[in-house]
C-alpha cells in the first residue's frame, strides 16, 4: 500500500475502494465485540464462513466481523446487507439456513427476528433500524460500528474516514479548529463535562515546543463499556479525532491510555495505529501538510483511579496512580511536566463529526448546556441491556422504557444509578428529567462517563451504597486521608447497617463523614465518593431506617437480615430444593415436607429460585422470626401423587 500524500490522493483512493465494492453484494455483518464474543460470536463467524465456502459463494458473499452495535442483550447478532435484515441470538447451527435461505433464496428467517414483546400477535421486525431499541436512538458515533470491520482501514475510508483530518490539516488553521470545537459546545464525555474547546485552548496557549495529547480509555466504571465499544469497534475514528486535536494544540506526540482488561480494544487500536502509519495518516508530513504526529499505546495495569487525569499522567510516567493537586492543570504542566491535553475516547470520536459537519451538527442536538449525543451503557435490571446513543435532553424514562424496553419479569422500577461509583441513584419521581450534565447534577447524580444501571424492587439501596463504597475503598489510591479514612469509616457503617448492626445516629454520622470526604479530598474520586451514600439516603431513607430500626431488608438482599423458610402447607416434598441446595441445609425426603436447617443455610437463595412457581413454598423473611419447624411426625405427606414430584 503506497502512502497517501495529499487530500486529493485520499479522495482518489477512497473512490477506488468504493468503486471496487458492489453495494448489492450480500454482506453478513456479525458483531464480534467483546459482548457477542462472550456469547459465542466467533463460532458463528466460523460456521458462516464455512457455509459460504461449502455453498460455493465465497466470491459472492462477504462475511464481515464488525464492532459492537450495542444490542448486547440479544447477541450474538448479525445484520445482512443490503436489506439490513437483523438476526438475533445466533447460533452456529443457524449458519446453513441463513446462507441457503436468506442469502440465496432471499427469504427472511422468522425465528431469528426481533419479536416485539407484549403484543398479542407476535409482531416481528426485520430491519435493524426499525427495532425499538435502535429506533429511539441517535447513533452518530456508534452507528458505523456494524458497518465496518475495525481491523480494516479501508472499511473506515469507505464510510468517509479521514476526510475530517484532510480538511483540518489542509483547510483550517489550528486556531480555527480550536474555535470550531469551542463553538460546537462539546463538553468532555469522561465525567466532568468540561468544555473540550476551552481545554484545547489552554493547551494551545501554553508556550512549549513539546506538548502531548492523550486518549483516556481507562474506562473503569463497573457496568460501563461505551469507550471500549468505540475503541474496539471504530478505532480509526478515535485516532482521527486525536490527530486533529494534536494539530490544533500543537502536539506531535500522543498516547492512548487503555486498560489492559480490554484486550480487544488494545489489539484493534494497535492495528489501527499501524495501518494509519502505513497510509500516512500518522508519522511525518501527514497528507502533505507538513504536520508530524505519532501515537503510542500505554496499557493501564488495573487501577480505577487512573481514569482521573492526573493519576493517569502519573501512571504514564511509570509511577503509582496517585493524583496530584491541580493547579497546575495538565494543560500547563502535564506529562513529564509538559502541556498536555487529555480527553476521553468519546470526546475524541466526536471531533471528526464536528469538523466534517460543522459545529451546528452538535449544537442542533441537545439542551441549552449539553450538546450532541451521549452514549450510555444501559445495564442491570432492564430488558434491553446494551449500548445506547441518545440525544442529550432525552428523558431517563425514554431511555429505560423506550430504548431499554423496561424492567424484566414485570418487576417494579426502583432507581437508576448514573455516573459510575461517583454517581447517584435516581428514583422514579425524577425519571422525567432531561438527561444532561446539569440536570443530573441537580438530582444528586452525575452524567459521569455514561454508565446507567437500572435497579428494580429486588435491589437493596443500602447494599448498593455499600457496594460502591467497597469498590471505592479498594480503588482509592490511599494517599490522602479524607478519602482513605472517610471511605473506610463509611463502609464500616454501611456494612454494619446491612448486617443488622446499625445504630441510631448512623445516618447522621454517614452524612458528616460524607461531607468531610467530599470537601477535603484531593481528587475527584474522593470528592465524589460520598455521592452513592448521599443520594441513597436522600431518596431511600426509609430503607436505611428499616435496616437500622427493624433489622429488616425490604428487598431481601442483605444476607444477615433475611431467612428462607419453607411453608409446610405449600411444600409438596418434590425434592428439587433439597437436591439443589449447595449447603445440604434442607432436611426432608420423599413424601416428607422439607425443612430448612437455619444453622446450615448460607442464604444463597437457590431453594427460592428452584421451588416450582406452582408450589411457591419457599418464602423469604426479613425483620421477623422464622417460625419453628413443624414436628417431624407432622411432616409426612400421605397419598402423594407421582405427578407432583
Amino acid at each position: 500500500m503506497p502512502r497517501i500524500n495529499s487530500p486529493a490522493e485520499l479522495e482518489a483512493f477512497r473512490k477506488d475502494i468504493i468503486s471496487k465494492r458492489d453495494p448489492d453484494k450480500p454482506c453478513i455483518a456479525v458483531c464480534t465485540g467483546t459482548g457477542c464474543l462472550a456469547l459465542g460470536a466467533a463460532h458463528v463467524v466460523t460456521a458462516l464462513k464455512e457455509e459460504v465456502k461449502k455453498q460455493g459463494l465465497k466470491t459472492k458473499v462477504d462475511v464481515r466481523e464488525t464492532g459492537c452495535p450495542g444490542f448486547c442483550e440479544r447477541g450474538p447478532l448479525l445484520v445482512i446487507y443490503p436489506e439490513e435484515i437483523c438476526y438475533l441470538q445466533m447460533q452456529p447451527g443457524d449458519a446453513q439456513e441463513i446462507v441457503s435461505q436468506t442469502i440465496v433464496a432471499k427469504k427472511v428467517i422468522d425465528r431469528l427476528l426481533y419479536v416485539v414483546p407484549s403484543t398479542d400477535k407476535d409482531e416481528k421486525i426485520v430491519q435493524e433500524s426499525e427495532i425499538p431499541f435502535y429506533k429511539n436512538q441517535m447513533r452518530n458515533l456508534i452507528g458505523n460500528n456494524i458497518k465496518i470491520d475495525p481491523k480494516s482501514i479501508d472499511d473506515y475510508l469507505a464510510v468517509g474516514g479521514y476526510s475530517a483530518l484532510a480538511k483540518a490539516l489542509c483547510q483550517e488553521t489550528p486556531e480555527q479548529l480550536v474555535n470550531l470545537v469551542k463553538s460546537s459546545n462539546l463538553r468532555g464525555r469522561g465525567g466532568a463535562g468540561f468544555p473540550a474547546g476551552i481545554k484545547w485552548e489552554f493547551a494551545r496557549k501554553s508556550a512549549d515546543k513539546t506538548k502531548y495529547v492523550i486518549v483516556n480509555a481507562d474506562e473503569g466504571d463497573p457496568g460501563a463499556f461505551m469507550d471500549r465499544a468505540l475503541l474496539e469497534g471504530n478505532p480509526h475514528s478515535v485516532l482521527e479525532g486525536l490527530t486533529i486535536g494534536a494539530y490544533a494544540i500543537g502536539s506531535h506526540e500522543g498516547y492512548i491510555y487503555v486498560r489492559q482488561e480490554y484486550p480487544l480494544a488494545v489489539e484493534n487500536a494497535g492495528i489501527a495505529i499501524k495501518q494509519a502509519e502505513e497510509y500516512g495518516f500518522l508519522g511525518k508530513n501527514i497528507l502533505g501538510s507538513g504536520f508530524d504526529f505519532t501515537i503510542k499505546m500505554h496499557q493501564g495495569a488495573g487501577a480505577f483511579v487512573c481514569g482521573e487525569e492526573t493519576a493517569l499522567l502519573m501512571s504514564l510516567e511509570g509511577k503509582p496512580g496517585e493524583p496530584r493537586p491541580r493547579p497546575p492543570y495538565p494543560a500547563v504542566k502535564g506529562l513529564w511536566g509538559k502541556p498536555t491535553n487529555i480527553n476521553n475516547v468519546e470526546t475524541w470520536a466526536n471531533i471528526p463529526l464536528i469538523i466534517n459537519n460543522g459545529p451546528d451538527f452538535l449544537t442542533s442536538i441537545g439542551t441549552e448546556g449539553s450538546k450532541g449525543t451521549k452514549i450510555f451503557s444501559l445495564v442491570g435490571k432492564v430488558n434491553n441491556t446494551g449500548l445506547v446513543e441518545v440525544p442529550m435532553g432525552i428523558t431517563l424514562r425514554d431511555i429505560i422504557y423506550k430504548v431499554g424496553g423496561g424492567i424484566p419479569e414485570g418487576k417494579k422500577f426502583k432507581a437508576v444509578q448514573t455516573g459510575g461509583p461517583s454517581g447517584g441513584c435516581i428514583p422514579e419521581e425524577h425519571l422525567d428529567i432531561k438527561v444532561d450534565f446539569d440536570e443530573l447534577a441537580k438530582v444528586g447524580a452525575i452524567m459521569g462517563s455514561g454508565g446507567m444501571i437500572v435497579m428494580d424492587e429486588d435491589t437493596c439501596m443500602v447494599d448498593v451504597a455499600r457496594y460502591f463504597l467497597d469498590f471505592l475503598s479498594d480503588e482509592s489510591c490511599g494517599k490522602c486521608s479524607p478519602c482513605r479514612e472517610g471511605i473506610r469509616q463509611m463502609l464500616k457503617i454501611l456494612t454494619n447497617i446491612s448486617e443488622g448492626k446499625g445504630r441510631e445516629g448512623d445516618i447522621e454520622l454517614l452524612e458528616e463523614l460524607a461531607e468531610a470526604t467530599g470537601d477535603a479530598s484531593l481528587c475527584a474520586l474522593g470528592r465524589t465518593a460520598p455521592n452513592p451514600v448521599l443520594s441513597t439516603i436522600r431518596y431511600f431513607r426509609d430503607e436505611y431506617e428499616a435496616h437500622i430500626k427493624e433489622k429488616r431488608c425490604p428487598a431481601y438482599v442483605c444476607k444477615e437480615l433475611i431467612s428462607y423458610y419453607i411453608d409446610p402447607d405449600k411444600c409438596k416434598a418434590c425434592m428439587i430444593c433439597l437436591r439443589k441446595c449447595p449447603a445440604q441445609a434442607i432436611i426432608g425426603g420423599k413424601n416428607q415436607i422439607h425443612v430448612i436447617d437455619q444453622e446450615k443455610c448460607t442464604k444463597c437463595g437457590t431453594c427460592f429460585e428452584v421451588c416450582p412457581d406452582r408450589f411457591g413454598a419457599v418464602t423469604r423473611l426479613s425483620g421477623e422470626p422464622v417460625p419453628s419447624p413443624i414436628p417431624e411426625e407432622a411432616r409426612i405427606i400421605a397419598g402423594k401423587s407421582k405427578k407432583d414430584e
Partner: protein
Amino acid sequence: MANKKVSTAAMGSSKIDKIIAKYQGNAGSLIQVLLEIQSENRWLPREALDKVSKKLKVPLNRIQHIVTFYKAFSLVPKGRHEVHVCTGTACHVRGAPRLLDSVQDLIGIRPGETDLDLKFSLETVNCLGCCALGPVMVVDGEYHGKMAPAKSEEVLKSYE
C-alpha cells in the same frame, strides 16, 4: 486452554532482558515492562523485580509499590485455572455476591488466592463489559453467563 502450564520457576533472565531492551531501558516504561513479564510468566518472581529495578534504575521500594498498587500484577504463582467472577455493578444487582459466595465455598479459596494444589486461582473483576450476561464467571478466558450459584458447581466440576 484447559491445561495451562504452571511455571513456578523464575522466567529466564534473557527473556526479561529482551523485554527491557524493547522499551530501551526507559524508566517511564516500568509498568509496561512489568505487564509484559506478568503476561509471559503469569506472576512476578522476586528475581524478576530485582532485575527490573537494576536495569531501569528504579528503586525497589517504588517497584514494590507499583506491583501492589496495580491489580494486574501477581506476586504469587497462579493456579492451572484462573477463575474470574465479575463483581461489576450490573452483575452485582443481578446476584454476583451470591455467585461469588458459592464459588468461594466450592473451591475453598477467597479472591486473590490460589489453592494449595495450584488448581484454581480466584479473582474478582470490576466489570468485564458483558453486562447482558450477568452474573458472569470467566474460567481460563471462557465466559459463563447468567450464572446461578447452583450452576457454578457444574461449571467448576468440568475443570481438572
